[in-house]
């Protein structure tokens, strides 16, 4: 069991303008570990995709609350993006490349990027109750060391 060294909780309305705030704030928080600049960019992309999913798919245009909980241990950062929106019927399908419920200009790559850039990703979702996306990443040196 890893010892938690730091933790931050952010809550904000599902306003797209908050996506940039969330990814930037979390990248700064993550920089307490020895992440490279490329890895911090990857965290920013993963957070941007996760929060965008909550805005677009979770609340589908309605305004609701999004919570982002970041936990640091000595070896990894864990980020939990949670919404109280519509929820997903089929989590496995949502993780498939190019799957999208809004095909007009959505590429269905959001969760693909999350999976590509983070070490571990899990999704817990219930129809009508919302979705929690939990992702974890270690600095490359920590991964090599372990």
């Amino acid at each position: 069991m890893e010892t938690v060294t730091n933790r931050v909780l952010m809550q904000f309305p599902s306003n797209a303008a908050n996506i940039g705030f969330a990814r930037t704030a979390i990248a700064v928080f993550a920089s307490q570990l020895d992440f490279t600049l490329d890895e911090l960019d990857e965290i920013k992309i993963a957070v941007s995709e996760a929060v965008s999913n909550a805005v677009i798919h979770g609340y589908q245009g309605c305004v609701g609350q999004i919570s982002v909980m970041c936990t640091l241990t000595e070896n990894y950062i864990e980020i939990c993006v949670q919404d109280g929106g519509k929820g997903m019927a089929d989590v496995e399908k949502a993780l498939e490349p190019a799957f999208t419920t809004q095909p007009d200009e959505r590429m269905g790559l959001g969760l693909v990027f999350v999976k590509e850039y983070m070490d571990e990703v899990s999704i817990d979702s219930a129809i009508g109750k919302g979705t929690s996306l939990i992702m974890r990443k270690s600095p490359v040196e920590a991964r090599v060391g372990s």
Partner: protein
Amino acid sequence: MMEERSEAPLFSVLLSILGAGIYYIFAKISLKAFEVSPISVGDAMGVPGCYMEGQRVEIATKRVGETLIVVLEGELDLATAQRVRDTVDSVLADDARLHHLIWDLGQVGFIDSSGLGMLLGRYKKIRARKGNVVAIGALEPVRRMLKMAGMERIMQFADTEEQALARIGGKH
């Protein structure tokens, strides 16, 4: 004396109306200073609600013959991609002679799947006009995302505007 008494209330009413008018004008000016113009993400996604303000992206457009050149500066995500989408679509809709599109991405520091989706949508519009799309100056993190999304297979890449125009061909 009687005439003086009847004019006093009238003067007082006129003064009140004038005061209310001045107050209204100052109130409107004060409110204007704090006014924001939200764009609805919901409208963009075909659903109501969820307001945002476009930010963190600067857009400049110019035309060279049949080519529209769009210079972007900032970050491309759900909040900002809509502004770019609206601007480019508006220019394309106004001028059917525009067949090609050059994206100058040299000042774009971040792009996610919302930004990529916007680029893909404009690519489809240009292909419908039998034109070509070229991206110039994409920084490594942005280039990496374009590659992961498969955009390198459908868009051309160049280092400079001149190279991009040469690659497109057509009328300049």
